[in-house]
C-alpha cells in the first residue's frame, strides 16, 4: 500500500504540466474553441510528449506505460482544460492492443502512438443512453475479414476530424467491436461543438467497410469505457484542482465590506467543503486507476464507485466555484465558467452520477470497503 509516485511518473507529470502551462494557455484554448474545438496541431504536441502512445507497447511505437501514468497525464491535461480527446487515444491504444488481431495492431498502433492517426470510440446511440449492452448498429460479413456496418453514433469526440472510429455493432446477434476509417465509403459525419467548447460529431454509417477488432464486443466495449472512466476521473481531479486554486486566488483578492471575501466564515466553510469533495474525488480517482487492471467484474464495480463519487464532487465543486465568484463567475470572459462547463460535461461523459449509483446499487455485495 503506497501512494507515492515514482520518479518517472513525477517527470511525466512535470513535462505535461509544463506543456499545459506554456503551450496551452487560456488564450490558445479560446482560439481553438473559436476555430471549432479541436486543434490537430495541439494534438500533435500531445503525441510529441508521448501521451498518445502511453498505453501502447514499445514494440508498436508506444511508451508501454500503465494506468497510473495515464492518470497523471489526464490530471495535468484537466488542469489546463485541454480540449483534445487524449482519453480516446488511451482507449484506442489499449483496446486495439488487448483485443485486435495482430494485423490490426501492426497497422494502427504505431500511427496512433505517433499522433498521425486519431482514433476515437464511437459507441453512443440515441436509445442506449449509458447502457453498453444496447446496440442497434448492424454489421454483416462482406468478404473474408471485411464487414459492412450500418447505423448511427452520436456525440463522437472530434468525430468529423478523426481518422478512424472504434465502433460496436451487432454481428450475427452478438455485439462485436470494429474499426471504421472515416474516409471509407458510406461514412458521413456532421461536426459541432459541445458545451465545454470541445468538438464532437454525429456519425452515420451506411454499409461502411469495417475491420473486426473482436467478436467479444461487449467485453471489449466495457474495457474501453472503463479506461475512459478512469481517464475522466483523473481529468476531473485536474480540473477541480485548477478550479479551487482559481477560486482561492479570487477570494483572497476580491474585497467587499472593506475586507477580502476569504475572511467570511460562511464562504470559508464552503471552501472546506470544496476541499473535501476534491480530496474524496482524488482518492477515488486513484482507486479507479489502481483497479483498472483487475478482472472485469471487480474493475466494473470500482469504476462505478469512482465515477459516482467523482461525479458528485464535480457538480459540487463546479457549482460552488461559480457561486463563490459571484457575477464574474457566470461570464464567458472569465475562466471559472469554463471550468464549470468542463466539469459538467465530464460528469455526463461515460455515465452520470445517477447512472453509476444504479450500477453500485446493482452490484453491491455483503462486504464493504476498498478491499472487498
Amino acid at each position: 500500500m503506497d501512494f507515492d509516485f515514482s520518479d518517472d511518473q513525477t517527470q511525466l507529470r512535470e513535462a505535461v504540466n509544463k506543456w499545459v502551462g506554456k503551450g496551452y494557455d487560456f488564450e490558445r484554448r479560446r482560439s481553438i474553441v473559436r476555430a471549432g474545438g479541436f486543434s490537430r496541431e495541439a494534438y500533435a504536441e500531445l503525441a510529441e510528449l508521448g501521451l498518445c502512445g502511453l498505453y501502447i507497447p514499445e514494440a508498436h511505437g508506444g511508451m508501454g506505460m500503465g494506468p497510473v501514468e495515464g492518470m497523471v497525464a489526464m490530471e495535468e491535461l484537466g488542469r489546463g482544460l485541454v480540449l483534445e480527446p487524449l482519453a480516446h487515444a488511451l482507449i484506442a491504444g489499449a483496446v486495439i492492443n488487448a483485443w485486435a488481431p495482430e494485423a490490426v495492431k501492426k497497422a494502427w498502433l504505431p500511427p496512433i502512438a505517433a499522433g498521425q492517426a486519431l482514433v476515437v470510440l464511437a459507441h453512443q446511440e440515441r436509445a442506449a443512453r449509458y447502457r453498453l449492452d444496447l446496440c442497434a448498429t448492424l454489421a454483416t460479413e462482406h468478404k473474408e475479414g471485411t464487414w459492412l456496418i450500418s447505423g448511427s453514433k452520436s456525440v463522437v469526440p472530434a468525430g468529423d476530424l478523426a481518422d478512424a472510429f472504434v465502433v460496436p455493432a451487432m454481428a450475427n446477434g452478438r455485439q462485436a467491436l470494429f474499426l471504421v476509417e472515416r474516409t471509407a465509403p458510406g461514412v458521413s459525419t456532421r461536426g459541432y461543438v459541445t458545451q465545454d467548447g470541445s468538438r464532437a460529431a454525429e456519425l452515420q454509417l451506411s454499409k461502411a467497410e469495417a475491420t473486426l477488432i473482436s467478436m467479444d464486443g461487449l467485453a471489449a466495449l466495457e474495457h474501453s469505457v472503463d479506461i475512459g472512466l478512469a481517464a475522466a476521473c483523473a481529468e476531473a481531479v485536474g480540473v477541480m484542482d485548477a478550479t479551487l486554486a482559481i477560486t482561492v486566488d479570487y477570494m483572497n483578492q476580491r474585497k467587499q465590506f472593506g475586507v477580502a471575501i476569504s475572511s467570511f466564515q460562511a464562504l470559508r466553510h464552503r471552501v472546506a467543503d470544496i476541499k473535501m469533495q476534491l480530496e474524496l474525488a482524488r482518492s477515488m480517482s486513484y482507486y479507479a486507476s489502481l483497479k483498472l487492471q483487475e478482472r472485469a467484474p471487480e474493475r466494473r464495480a470500482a469504476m462505478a464507485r469512482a465515477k459516482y463519487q467523482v461525479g458528485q464532487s464535480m457538480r459540487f465543486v463546479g457549482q460552488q466555484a461559480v457561486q463563490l465568484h459571484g457575477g464574474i463567475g457566470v461570464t464567458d470572459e472569465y475562466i471559472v465558467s469554463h471550468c464549470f462547463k468542463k466539469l459538467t460535461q465530464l460528469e455526463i461523459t461515460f455515465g452520470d452520477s445517477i447512472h453509476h449509483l444504479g450500477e453500485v446499487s446493482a452490484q453491491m455485495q455483503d462486504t464493504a470497503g476498498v478491499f472487498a
Partner: protein
Amino acid sequence: MDLAFTSEEQHFREDIRAWVLANLPADISHKVHHALRLSKDDMQRWARILGQKGWLGHGWPKAFGGPGWNAVQKHLFEEECALAGAPRVVPFGPVMVAPVIMAFGNAEQQQRFLPGIASGEVWWSQGYSEPGSGSDLASLRCKAERQGKHYIVNGQKTWTTLGQYGDWIFCLVRTSSEGKPQTGISFLLIDMKSPGVTVRPIVLLDGEAEVNEVWFENVEVPAENLIGEENKGWTYAKHLLSHERTNIADVNRAKRELERLKRIAKAEGVYDDPRFRDEIAKLEVDVVALEMLVLRVLSAEKTGKNSLDIAGLLKIRGSELQQRYTELMMLAAGPFSLPFMAEAMDAGWQGDQVHGGLGGLGGFPGGALHCAPLASTYFNMRKTTIYGGSNEVQRNIVAQTVLG
C-alpha cells in the same frame, strides 16, 4: 503506487487476526456486533488482555514498552480489532495522556504512570471542556493555585467521558490570567479519589450516562503531578491532538457497521427496495472513499511526508459517516426502532417474564430484538460531529490550510 498491502503487512495482519480471534472474549464481541450495552468490566477486561500482550499502548514506541509499529501496522491492528468486534480502546490513558507523559513528563512521572496505563489497570479520564469553554477551550477557568508543595484546584470540568469509572484525570487548568488565554494553562494529573472531587453523571438523549460533570473543590494536588512547565499546558494539549489522526476517522468500524447495515436492511425487507438500497449504495461509496483517504494519509505517514492538508478532513468525514450508518439502520427498522426498552439492550435479555418472555408478548415488539438499540445508537452518535473539535471548527482549520 500500489493499492495492495505488502506481503509483510499481510502477514502482520494475519498474525493480528489470529491473535484477536484467540483472545477476544466471545461475549464481548457479541455485544459489539449487536450494539448491546458494554459494562465497565467488558471494557476493562479487553484492555487488560491487550495490556498483557503489550498492545494496549499499541501506538507506543519500543522505548516505552510499546510494539513500535509504524502507521500502517497500527492501522492494520485497529482494523483487525474493529472487524472482529473488539470494543474501542478507551483512549484517554493509552492514546491521549500517555504520549504527553512520554514527550513532556519527567522520568519519575513516566515510571509512575505509564505502567498502569499500559496494563489497563488504571482508568484515565479527560478534563478539558468546561461549561463555558467548548470550542473556545483556551477560555477555560478551572483554576490551580500553587501553595507550597501543592496546587489547590477549584472549578468544574464537563463532558468527561466515562469519568464515573475514572481513577485519574488529566486536566487543563488555569495557572495564570496574564497574557493570551493560551499561555496561562497548565497540564495537571489529578487523582480522582482526592478529597474535594465530585463526579456527577449526565444522562444523555439515549438515556445512558456516558459523560459526567466533575467538580473540584479545594482539591490538593501534589506539585509533582504537573506535566512539564507551568503555563505550557496548551502546547502539550496540541501535541496530543496531533496523535492518531487517522484513527479518528474510524473507517474500520464504518466498514463493519456498513456490513451490519446490509444485514439489518435484509432482515427488515428494505434491501431490495430501490430507494432504500440506493441510500446504502451511496454509503458504500462514501466508505470506500473515506478508506482511500485514510490509506493516503497512512502512506504519507509511512514515508514521513506531510499530509496535514487532508488529515484535517478525516474527522469531518468519518463522523458524518458514523452518523449516516446509524441513521440508516434506524430507518431500516422503521416502526420497530421506536420502542425504547433500555433492558433489551443488555445481552441475554429474556424479555418480560410476566408477559411470556421473549417468545411471547414479553419480547421486543414484533419479535425484532435486533432493532432494540438502533434508535439509541443513532441518537448517541450525534456527539461525533460535536466532540473532538466540532465539525464547524474542523472546517475552519481546513479552510485555513486552503485559503491561508
